[in-house]
């Protein structure tokens, strides 16, 4: 009886220590993530649009202003097409390269390192360099000129397949393609590493068996390999979507908002209107909209992962 009591006591002491280990972090997260998000939400409903804080209640005024604003409408359009094109490019390039590199290629690690190294760089570095490479009067156009093509890259103000929608022309802004090139250059390595790890995890016997049954290489990929990689694609989409929806530094360093806001995104607008223009309530409202856009992807994903654990 005495020993039982002793172990019980010891167990509870350890439990307390475990909580003590976790408590500071939980407290920090509760205050600095959830508390601060709530505070931003409150600011977004206030009249604080000057340098002097003004917390009087404004209702949805700031949100209504944004949704009728030419710049913010452009931002939503750009964010949408940037996200789709960027994720598409990263997945196609990453998966394609992973399939090429998976098949006993000479110099596999050499190629892999070349495709992966931009991951170690800052978006600011990428932006500074690609700003010069895709500048219409320099960079790659020095080459392309000899073939008679001179794209305007990120200075192009055309909207592909555009039609009038609210204040803006809705369609794919050509200038966004330049941002897609630079960001895909940087992030393809992520998808490549994920897919390579996935391919290496598929047992060789599975392919052998399919080959024995007379399946062609193409069929093996379509019927066996690609379905096995589906959870990896889900992870890649999630990680890339949360990067593209909140992107700021790459565009800030590379192009800025652009003429007619063709390369502007909510992250950039939030920064400029809050910290250069002192429109704090507008900035907070943009931030809350960005958070909601990310949460649509993230919350179901995290919820599913949590259930799978227990």
């Amino acid at each position, binding site marked *: 009886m005495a020993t039982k009591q002793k172990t019980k006591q010891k167990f509870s002491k*350890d439990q307390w220590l475990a909580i003590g280990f976790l408590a500071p972090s939980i407290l920090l997260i509760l205050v600095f993530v959830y508390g601060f998000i709530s505070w931003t939400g409150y600011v977004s409903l206030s009249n604080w649009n000057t340098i002097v804080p003004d917390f009087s209640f404004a209702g949805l005024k700031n949100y209504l202003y944004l949704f009728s604003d030419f710049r913010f409408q452009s931002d939503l359009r750009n964010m949408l097409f940037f996200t789709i094109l960027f994720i598409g490019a990263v997945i196609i390039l990453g998966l394609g390269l992973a399939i090429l590199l998976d098949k006993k*290629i000479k110099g596999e690690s050499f190629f892999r390192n070349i495709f992966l190294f931009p991951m170690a760089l800052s978006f600011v570095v990428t932006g500074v*360099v690609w700003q010069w490479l895709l500048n219409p009067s320099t960079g790659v156009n020095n080459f392309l000129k000899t073939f008679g093509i001179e794209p305007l890259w990120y200075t192009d103000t055309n909207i592909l397949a555009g039609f009038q929608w609210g204040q803006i022309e809705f369609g794919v802004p050509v200038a966004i393609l330049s941002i897609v090139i630079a960001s895909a250059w940087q992030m393809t390595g992520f998808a490549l590493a994920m897919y390579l790890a996935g391919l290496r995890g598929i047992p060789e016997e599975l392919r052998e068996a399919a080959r024995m049954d007379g399946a062609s290489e193409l069929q093996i990929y379509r019927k066996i390999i690609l379905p096995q990689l589906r959870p990896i694609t889900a992870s890649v989409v999630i990680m890339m979507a949360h990067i593209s929806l909140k992107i700021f530094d790459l565009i800030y360093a590379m192009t800025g908002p652009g003429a007619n806001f063709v390369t502007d995104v909510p992250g950039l607008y939030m920064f400029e209107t809050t910290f250069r223009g002192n429109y704090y309530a507008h900035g907070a409202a943009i931030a809350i909209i960005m958070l909601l856009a990310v949460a649509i992807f993230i919350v179901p994903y995290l919820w599913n992962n949590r259930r799978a654990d227990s």
Partner: protein
Amino acid sequence: MTTPSHYFARLLKYFILIVLALFFLMPVYVILVTSLKPLDEISLSQMWALPTSIDFSSYVQAFEELGPNFLNSFYLAIPATLLSALLGAMNGYVLSKWKFKGSETLFTVILFGMFIPYQSILIPLIQFLDTIGLYNSILGLIFVHVVYGLPITTLMFRNFYANIPDEMLESARIDGAGFLGIFRHIILPLSITGFVVVAIWQFTNIWNEFLFAVTITQSDQQPVMVALQNLSGSQIVQWNVQMAGAFIAALPTLLVYMILGKYFVRGLLAGSVKG
């Protein structure tokens, strides 16, 4: 194996790989070629031409501009990396080996912090730092990176510790070791790889981070990425100096990648939730 179609397929594969590799290396080529040219060879029409002689004056000028900020980035990234790794190890230990009712939910609550756009906490954060006197200081930035680094370091260590068999802990417990004893004598000695992976990941992220840096610090307190952005935004600085600056700013994380690339990739995989 040596049928013509196989041969052709092989050739095509290498052709695609080489073309893409050249595309990926193109920015590196332009950075190096431009930053090493003597001043009289720097014209936009000669952007792709190799330098006739090697000249480091662009680097000298870029380093004069970026040097102090470059040091700031080290003062920021090293303590922030170590602190957030240590807290992540503590959290990961509890969340993998001392699970309790609701610990999975707590973990998800922490993890969500990794995905939020930081714009959504930035206004209160700056008010807060201003109030406690840490606005415009490297110390303030260290604090910020430790706090917002918690989700990713916790995730990485939790996944890492999940691979340590529970039987090891059980036998130590029978020998009388408690919560702290197990952490010090069993978990920490097995954590070296975990710390390397997490430290590389955090160092790279903190070194490269821009949004917090540009909103929380000014002039002489700014890390190198903000200084690089200022350099490239200024009209009077020539683009060869910008390229040299980009190279200098990228060098530390690039070296880490080149020397410890294997761990970098492990961090990448460990940080992708399912991993």
